């Protein structure tokens, strides 16, 4: 039961190799479909993160770290937050202070107010998804990776 040392069986490895892209595709669907149906940035991000967690559990944690290094995690989580909060600030900026924070109808992506709004929501969902995914993965790393044992082993 130690994800750092054990070697997985070939069946599990192969199955998850096939599964992971599909999980990720589904996660993307969830993120982008969030504004229309069930799901959204957070759920999508969590699904995305679980695909990585599956990867880490099946292969080992060191390989997982190589795939998603800590710096990438951090950059993704910050970038997600920047997107989220930045869109909010942009709406203030573009409306020259007339619109409120997160009133994304005012960001001139297109000429239509409603389209702007839809795009704004999508952007925000992407931001949330990125942050959630990165944070979840890094929490899992922190919980699962025993630094002491690594040095011994």
């Amino acid at each position, binding site marked *: 039961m130690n994800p750092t040392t054990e070697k997985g069986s070939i069946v599990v490895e192969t199955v998850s190799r096939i599964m992971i892209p599909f999980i990720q595709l589904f996660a993307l669907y969830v993120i982008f479909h969030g504004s229309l149906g069930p799901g959204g940035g957070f759920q999508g991000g969590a699904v995305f993160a679980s695909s990585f967690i599956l990867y880490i559990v099946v292969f080992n944690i060191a390989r997982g770290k190589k795939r998603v290094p800590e*710096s990438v995690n*951090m*950059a993704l*989580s*910050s970038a997600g*937050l*920047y997107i989220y*909060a930045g869109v*909010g*600030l942009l709406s*203030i900026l573009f409306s020259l*202070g*007339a*619109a*409120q*924070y*997160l*009133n*994304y*109808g005012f960001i001139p992506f297109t000429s239509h107010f409603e389209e702007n709004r839809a795009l704004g929501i999508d952007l925000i969902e992407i931001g949330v998804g990125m942050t959630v995914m990165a944070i979840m993965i890094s929490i899992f790393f922190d919980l699962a990776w025993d630094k002491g044992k690594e040095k011994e082993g």
Partner: protein
Amino acid sequence: MTGFVEHLPILTIVIPLFSAFTILVAGWFNKKSCIFIFWLTLTAQFIMSFIILRRVLIHGPIHYWLGGWKPPWGIELVVDSLNAYILIILLFLSLACAIYSKSNIEHELPGKRVSFYTLFQLLIAGLCGVTLTGDIFNMFVFIEIFSISAYALIAARGKIALKASFTYLILGSIGTCFFILGIGCLYSVTGSLNIHDLSLLLPPFYGNKVVKAAFVFFIVGLSIKMALFPFHTWLPDAHAFAPAEISAMLSGIMIEISTYAFIRVSFSVFTLEFLKLLPVFDILCWVAVAAILMGSVMAITQVNLKRMLAYSSVANMGYIMLAVGISLSAVESPWGGLNPALMHIANHALMKGCLFLAAGAFIYKANLWHITEFRGLARKMPYTCAAFVLAAISMIGIPPSAGFVSKLYIILASIEIKNYFFVAVLLISSLLNLVYFWRVIETMYMKHEEGGHSSHGSHGMREEIPLGMLIPILLLSSLCIVMGIVWLGKIPIPILDQVNLMFGLGKVP
């Protein structure tokens, strides 16, 4: 340019959020840059808080609809004089702790600087959020944000702090669970979450059992958060074993913010009429009295300075809650209404902030935790000890310090409601304060070292802490005295009057 000022409340919440993650990224490249980003953010916030206060005092409350959605549906930020006032205290103490933290964290948690500052920044973002929001569920979310950051920050020193943090986590989560239960009850009755909207929708349901239950849930939940007497068990360890600046933030601001949440919920959501229906505030007074006595007595039994200060915080929460409890019955200006409570919130933030930072300084310099080890400390660290004495004098309530004024006001208010027992308790507790603080001062100043911890001998060199740590301590301690004079004067009257007017408390001159 009033249009811009309208956006400041949300900026005070978003900018620290931005900055928290910026610190994370910047820390990856250069560990030293974190602290500067942190300082910059806080200074900006502090300046903004003053602009907000000025705007609120002149033009009245700011209502800010997030995303342009109108209140019953969208989240609203409301800034009135109460928020603005609390925000300034919060940011001021944060700034002091931030300045202090530079040297201390390099020394105490050298490897964890980046994550420390990130969490600290998140803590401040959460506290600002609680203060500024006008939506009760949003308040819950921000309470959780600052609590989670606090759990992690408390645990930073490891060992006992871990256990303390865990206890706090469990109790704090239960507290917030009660809080959302309360929100749920209110929502089931009214279908709204906006504080202002609730206050309009609730009155027909005041007799409803669900509403009463909701109020009790709020009281229990927030009492756990603010460590009111029977629920204080998490506090002493958590406050004692956190890093110094976090202790200062916990004792000086975090429990006060929970008190603010309590005031907001009970006066803005449930209005005065509801509070007069139930005898809750009377009960609260007696609980507060128990907290005062218990906190003071327990503080006397402590040998660990920071634990002693933590118990003193329990007692001081008692003061604040007593003042809140009396506020209903005592109406006559200027000690009526919430004035004493608001005063003591500010004063306690200054005093406890100063005391905890000073205690941290002793630990920083010579790893001194226990009062008995402080022999002859005044010769080595004269400025820190002097600051400690000033803050302690203020805690005891000796004039003309800040603590004296708030104590005087609470006493006057208790006399007005003709409850002489409260007066006696307040006076006794100030004597108890004297006992436990004077013990420390006496050891520091009057007892000589017995060839103890220093290699320099009894008339050793000065071993003062770095300037960056000293300045906030001295600033806070001198404010302990200055604020006493300010409170006696007329400067704070507009703010306090506006708060009382808003809640329908007190007599307006």
